[in-house]
């Protein structure tokens, strides 16, 4: 069922399952919903907004990675002309955090600062220069404490504690999960392999820096425009910290200039802006500088990993023991979930009958880590896939064939209670093998050139919400007007992944209208029903299903009146392109707008709501909340590399990727997501790293934190596999995150194929390559 649409500009989606009506919008390459605004400079991102009388806010940040905050004196700053308001930690004492179990942050630090860049005070002033001056005029007295900058330091016996409440050194959380009889599994194995890996931290770097505009109106109502992926959670946190009834707060998401996980919880600037607005009586804008975005971080955790696997001679896994230690930075953020994620999906996409996972997260004096594209699953995927490459080699098996042989089957459960429904990974592996010419290349290229392959799996939305509640994860509301216009209300936040186009596509398909007829109201906590946010690749599956459910109700009403008017039974009717027609006699037609008017006369105002709540899938054990998803996406990637063995430079020539996304609702958008994910994975594999020196972020700039540019980027060959998920909207699963993960081990394995040395840490820099080559040369000459 693999459908390659890369060469077909007006491609159709894949084979139709029997009995399914054909699609009129789904599977078509169409422009994104807001293409016009985004291509003409009219789209207003948060920092493009300007309200009358608006003033500017700025945060003063800690220069110390770890210090006691003894005194803050804001008098001088407050006396500067043009300064309207100043806040310090005492003004906002309520702690918050994205996870109910980690309510450990203050908008402005109180008593202690835990990373360089942590906000300690906030100023609102007539312009940005004055706000900056005022920040410099705030006098802060610190008592520096020894900083803890790595996992090893955090676990040292005499380590200073970053949070007083941790019981054992700086360990925030330890988890242990065991499924099946591990001992028996290893006893059954023909071979046992053991390896260690380190994944270096890195960060999201959306091109748009975070920005917020807040307006505290005279009636006590607060409006916050923010570049956030999670307006609903921001709404909740604002209500909590500002101690306001949520009904008085409205969060609006303007177009967001990229997120990748970096804008998915409340940040200090979002909390202080409304308060500064209240104090000053002016709307307040805060736009972070690029450097400040590096301090917000919440990016990929550095993780140390250990893995032990028992296998049969044919590669079948008999047992897997995996442990991870995450460097969490200074606060909880999503970290406990991340910790679980470094273990939860390791029983996929291969059959793992017995499994143990031990994970822990430590605090360090660095900006907090959190979720980045592939949240917590990318690091273990690197380890497992590099490890399996070694396993295959030792067993004398082709690593691609071995993977194909040990795959999970569709419609099964894993040992840790994950439900697998559709799975197109077998097709994906085949597509990659064929398109990359794998068999002719692997192990057969000249020294310095190589090819490597890896697979991965990701969620189509977390099965459980972040805070426990029995309500839907997504809601949508649709109204149809008398001119046949369809307006969809949904709280989704479009961060560039094109959730807006997804909603338009699903509703247009269901109602049989053209995309042009659809209007959207999204990213607004007052106007649209809740959607939990753009994280865990949940939006297409959940908001898509909610919108489809609402649309289906309206469709039924329209079909009723159409059946009556056209005098044909409803089951003979179809709708497409704004026409409802008889499938057997297509000349019998009723225009959509006409049907809408008839239906309104018959049923009253045409509106409907839909919701989506995932099936209850969590297993009967503590910690089972992380991992379940209504569906999983699967990816296979191969990378061909060239290593300059003289300079250590690594060039990735081409990456082939095949991704099982269920259904490509809009192939152009889906390919774009895949290519973007592959690009990001390749960058993590080869160049990106967030490193610290002397307690400071070493390179908080776009010049020194290297995100690759046009000439650096390899060629990418994309195949979309349509496994038609039984529960996804029109069969769709996810495409935004999954394709990143396999690229990193694919590159690593390709480097092995090229130079015969396995690198066990990311990123694979020229420096590392030269080190290992030189070490090998020395060993060789010593042996002579």
């Amino acid at each position, binding site marked *: 069922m693999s459908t390659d649409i890369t060469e077909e500009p007006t491609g159709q989606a894949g084979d139709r399952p029997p009995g399914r009506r054909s699609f009129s919008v789904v599977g078509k390459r169409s422009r994104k919903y807001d293409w016009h605004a985004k291509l003409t400079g009219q789209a207003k991102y948060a920092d493009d907004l300007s309200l009358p009388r608006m003033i500017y806010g700025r945060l003063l*940040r800690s*220069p*110390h990675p770890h210090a006691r905050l003894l005194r803050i004196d804001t008098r001088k700053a407050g006396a500067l002309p043009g300064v309207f308001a100043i806040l310090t930690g005492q003004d906002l004492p309520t702690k918050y955090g994205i996870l109910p179990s980690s309510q450990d942050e203050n908008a402005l630090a109180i008593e202690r600062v835990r990373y*360089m860049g942590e906000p300690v005070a906030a100023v609102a002033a007539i312009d940005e220069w004055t706000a900056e001056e005022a920040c410099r005029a705030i006098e802060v007295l610190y008592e520096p404490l020894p900083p803890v900058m790595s996992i090893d330091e955090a676990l040292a016996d005499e380590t200073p504690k970053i949070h007083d409440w941790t019981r054992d050194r700086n360990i925030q959380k330890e988890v242990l999960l065991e499924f099946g009889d591990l001992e028996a599994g290893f006893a059954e194995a023909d071979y046992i392999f053991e390896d260690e890996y380190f994944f270096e931290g890195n960060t999201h770097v959306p091109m748009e820096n975070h920005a917020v505009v807040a307006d505290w109106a005279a009636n006590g109502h607060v409006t916050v425009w923010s570049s956030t992926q999670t307006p609903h959670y921001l709404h909740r946190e604002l209500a909590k910290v500002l101690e306001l009834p949520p009904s008085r707060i409205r969060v609006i998401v303007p177009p967001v200039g990229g997120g990748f996980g970096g804008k998915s919880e409340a940040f200090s600037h979002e909390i202080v802006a409304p308060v500064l607005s209240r104090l000053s009586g002016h709307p307040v804008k805060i736009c972070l*500088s690029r*450097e400040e975005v590096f301090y917000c971080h919440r990016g990929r955790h550095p993780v140390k990993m250990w893995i032990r696997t028992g296998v049969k001679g044919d590669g079948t896994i008999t047992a897997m023991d995996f442990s991870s230690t995450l460097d969490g930075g200074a606060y909880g953020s999503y970290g406990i979930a991340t910790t679980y994620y470094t273990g939860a999906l390791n029983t996929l996409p291969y059959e793992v009958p017995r499994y143990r996972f031990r994970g822990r997260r430590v605090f360090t004096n660095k900006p907090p880590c959190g979720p980045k594209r592939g949240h917590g699953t990318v690091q273990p995927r690197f380890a497992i896939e590099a490890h399996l490459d070694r396993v295959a080699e030792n067993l004398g098996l082709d690593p691609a064939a071995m993977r194909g042989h040990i795959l999970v089957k569709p419609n099964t459960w894993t040992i840790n209670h994950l439900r697998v429904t559709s799975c197109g990974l077998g097709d994906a592996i085949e597509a990659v093998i064929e398109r990359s010419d794998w068999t002719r290349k692997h192990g057969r290229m000249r*020294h*310095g050139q190589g090819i490597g392959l890896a697979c991965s799996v990701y969620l189509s939305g977390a099965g459980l919400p972040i805070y426990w509640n029995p309500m839907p994860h997504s809601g949508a509301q649709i109204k149809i007007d008398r001119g046949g216009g369809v307006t969809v209300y949904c709280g989704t936040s479009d961060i560039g992944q094109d959730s807006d186009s997804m909603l338009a596509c699903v509703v247009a398909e269901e109602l049989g209208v053209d995309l042009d007829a659809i209007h959207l109201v999204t990213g607004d906590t007052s106007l649209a029903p809740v959607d939990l946010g753009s994280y865990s690749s949940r939006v297409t599956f959940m908001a898509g299903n909610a919108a489809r459910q609402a649309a289906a109700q309206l469709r039924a009403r329209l079909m009723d009146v159409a059946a009556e008017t056209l005098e044909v039974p409803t089951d003979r009717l179809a709708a497409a392109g704004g026409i409802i027609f008889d499938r057997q006699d297509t000349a019998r037609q009723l225009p959509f707008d006409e049907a809408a008017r008839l239906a309104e006369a018959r049923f009253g105002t045409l509106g409907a709501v839909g919701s989506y709540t995932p099936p209850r899938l969590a297993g009967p054990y503590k910690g089972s909340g992380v991992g379940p998803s209504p569906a999983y996406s699967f990816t296979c990637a191969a990378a061909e590399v060239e290593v*300059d*063995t*003289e*300079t*250590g430079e690594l060039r990735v020539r081409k990456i082939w990727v095949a991704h099982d996304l269920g259904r490509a609702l809009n192939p152009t958008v889906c390919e774009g997501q895949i290519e973007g994910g592959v690009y990001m994975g390749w960058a993590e594999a080869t*160049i990106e790293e967030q490193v610290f020196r*002397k307690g*400071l*972020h*070493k*390179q*908080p*700039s*776009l*010049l*020194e934190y*290297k995100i*690759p*540019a*046009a*000439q*650096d980027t390899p060629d990418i060959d994309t195949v979309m596999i349509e496994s038609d998920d039984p529960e996804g909207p029109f069969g769709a699963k996810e495409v935004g995150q999954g394709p990143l993960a396999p690229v990193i081990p694919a590159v690593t394995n390709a480097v092995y194929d090229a*130079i015969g040395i396995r690198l066990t840490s990311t990123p694979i*820099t*020229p*420096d590392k390559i*030269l*080190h290992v*080559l030189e070490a*090998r*040369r020395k060993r*060789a000459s010593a042996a002579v």
Partner: protein
Amino acid sequence: MALLAEHGTDAMLMAGGTDLLPNIKHRVATPEHVVSIRDLPELQGFEVSEHGATLGAGTRLSRLEHDPQIRRVYPALAESASLISVPQVRAVGTLGGNICLDTRCNYYNQSYEWRQAIGFCMKRDSPICRVAPGGDRCWAVASADTVPVLIALRADVEVVSGHQERVLPLEAIYQDDGLEPTTLTFGEIVQGIKIPPPHGYVTVYQKFRLRQSFDFPLVGIAVSIRSDISGIVAEARIVMTAVASYPERAEPAERLLVGAPLTEESILAAGNAVFRQAKPMDNTAGTIFHRKRMARILVERALRRIAQLPETMQRVS
């Protein structure tokens, strides 16, 4: 010029501003006044032929990169310009600005708040160097791409101040001091450079950086060789950028090359000499280990290109 005199040391010259403006934003440069020399007619000279070149300091990098005459007569210069930063910067950045580029260091090219957090450094606002805290000097790195090529081409620089004009070898305006990388005195303006005819010389530039655009060199090597009819090297210049506070001549390697033909052996020997000489500090991207090796490899590759030997001798490992 008059403006400079009027505002004294509170004023700084700005040509393209692509180096100065980031430095002002980082508050490592804090001039009260900026005197724009972008369009000063005296700096716009541009004459190139087989008989040599006179290039005004105001020449845009994009012109150096694209001008057909430069590409024909001084291809290494065009190449070095094309490897600077990105097209948007080359469209406004100038030759003069590149020659007078401030030295760089990743403790220095940071925001005010970042530098304050580390306690500032000797190059600005503190007596201590963060790279070599025990020492009494600054090791910030000379990072211009065109300069090593110009020195390899034996260019002279024309410096004017008021009514004075002096012409001296370009090399002579640099000194091994991260704080004051040039010997130009206040009020002196680089008017342009003069490059002797290229006849008989083959010049090559090699740059190493992590990305193919945006990035400053982590090592850059310019090599210029003149050989006699029998293939014996008569003159050799090797100039390194980004490994010291000034564009450093690799004289030991040059001496090894002169008087013998370019062979794989002599090239490896020159590479070794450069490897021993290059002493990068840990204040740029990349690592010392790797940059030192890159210096060797780049010089070898440049020499092989000149000798028309196969470009890469893959060290079989």
